[in-house]
């Protein structure tokens, strides 16, 4: 009945493995992994919404918000400390997602998806028109620091990689506990039957609002980390294709397991990198083909490959 929870332990082991990898990974691969982990965080938030039955086509909004918070603070205001950047990223994403969430939590299905997309496109539109922030080109970001310590540029990538690994796994641990908590189950309950949830004395809107805010924080942190490692931001981060990419990764990984978004993101980045190398002008076709194959053969994402446990389980 109560299955032994091994996920938490496995996540710690995986984190140690990723930390050790820092010493072996070539620069390009640690860069790729950092970006993948950062995107994995965004997708983790998206998966949280999908488990509640909602697909957001606008997580790019917060991904971009996180990126621009880091960029604007670093380049225009001279704040480069990762701790401060992170706190401001999280606070600003909470404020904005709470306000938008008050409206969004009333919508479901395609209306929710389209509205989230609309909001992210509004941010895209604003940034494209903002010459001070480089319009469509975006701008470069000052290297990050930590409590007055400025790592050498050559090792900066490794430090950001380690920082990303730590953050990612802390969030994974948190989300794993969350998925098993009453609120985690409330998401599934809302997906299955909102009427019953109402009649159990719980407000689906409030639960959805909370989940939307959590998803926004994850996306903003993912965006902030991406900006730090890439050293550059541009409005493309809020464009709908970026949000579409997150949905793609969510489908690739599946929503069954808390680590699925991370694994999905790593595989996605690898496919994309090699597809780009193989066919610089038509790499999207390879991605599209991969997506088709997933939908046809792995409807539950990569997790369909594993033997299914008995129903219920510890999702």
């Amino acid at each position: 009945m109560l299955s032994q929870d091994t996920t938490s332990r496995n996540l710690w082991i995986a984190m140690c493995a990723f930390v050790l990898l820092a010493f072996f990974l070539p620069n390009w691969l640690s860069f790729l992994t950092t970006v993948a982990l950062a995107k994995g965080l965004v997708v983790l938030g998206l998966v949280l919404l999908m488990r509640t039955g909602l697909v957001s086509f606008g997580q790019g909004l917060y991904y971009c918000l996180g990126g621009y918070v880091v960029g604007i603070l670093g380049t225009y205001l001279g704040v480069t400390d990762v701790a401060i950047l992170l706190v401001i990223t999280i606070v600003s994403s909470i404020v904005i997602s709470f306000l938008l969430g008050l409206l969004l939590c009333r919508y479901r299905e395609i209306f929710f998806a389209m509205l989230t997309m609309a909001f992210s496109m509004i941010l895209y539109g604003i940034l494209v028109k903002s010459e001070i922030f480089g319009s469509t080109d975006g701008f470069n970001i000052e290297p990050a620091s930590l409590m007055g310590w400025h790592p050498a540029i050559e090792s900066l990538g490794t430090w950001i990689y380690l920082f990303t690994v730590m953050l990612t796994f802390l969030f994974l641990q948190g989300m794993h506990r969350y998925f098993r908590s009453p609120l985690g189950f409330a998401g599934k309950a809302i997906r299955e039957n909102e009427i019953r949830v109402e009649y159990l004395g719980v407000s689906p809107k409030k639960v959805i609002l909370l989940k939307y805010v959590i998803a926004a924080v994850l996306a903003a942190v993912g965006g902030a980390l991406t900006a730090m490692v890439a050293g550059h931001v541009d409005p493309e981060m809020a464009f709908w294709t970026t949000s579409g990419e997150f949905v793609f990764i969510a489908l690739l990984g599946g929503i069954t397991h808390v680590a699925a978004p991370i694994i999905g993101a790593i595989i996605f980045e690898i496919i994309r990198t090699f597809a780009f190398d193989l066919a610089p002008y038509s790499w999207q076709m390879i991605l599209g083909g991969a997506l088709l194959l997933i939908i046809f053969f792995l409807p539950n994402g990569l997790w369909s490959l594993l033997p299914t446990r008995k129903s219920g389980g510890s999702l």
Partner: protein
Amino acid sequence: MVILETKGLSKSFGAVTAASEINVVINEGEVVGVIGSNGAGKTTFINMVTGYLKPSEGTIYYRGKNITGLSPRKITRAGICRSFQIAQLFKELTTLENMVIAFRMLENKRLGGFAPLLTEKSVEQSLKELKEYGIDEYSDAVVATLPQGVRKLLDIAMALAGQPALLLLDEPTSGVAIDEKFDLMDTVMNAVNRTGAATLFVEHDMEIIEKYATRVIAFYDGSIIVDAPTSEAMVHPDVKEYIIGTELHRHTEESLDNV
């Protein structure tokens, strides 16, 4: 003690009047049967009392407090729970998970916190409850695979998990085979007696009404035509003419369908 009182409750959808001038008083611990043909306003009444529909006119008092127009959530928290004609369950979750969620949500506490939902304690509590309804053997089965009777029982068990003071059952035996109806009602009434909740149930089967209800409210065309102790109501000329007559007719139709 009066637990529920409605005064002049009416509901119309455009030109259609689904319920008009419904005046009902329900006392603590009473078991009331509601009868009436399809479309007579029985479910509309339940939907208004539980906040699913907002009455066009009239007021609903629960323990002397006006609860008209409150959301289902607030009414549930106040102590009125209901079951549904078509069981409303979390289909992709297991029977046990459904029960645990019902207990947790109805606890009237905040849902927050990172402690797991499924603990030894919560699982044990729910298994015990499922056993009371005789459906514990299905605890690990996903709800979508359950037989109709088990779904109905689970639906009612979830409604009763919050220890309501008033329980409204919308056709508890609909969709259940005739020979299982009495077993189901026995189980339900045992559970109700344990909590002491006042119960109002909608039912088409007059034998079930006679066996379980102490009082009968008969609906016809959106209004109450008879409200009397069961033995009296069953022989009331209006009930005979408007409801039992149509009920017999309905049964005949059903049997003909089955042929």
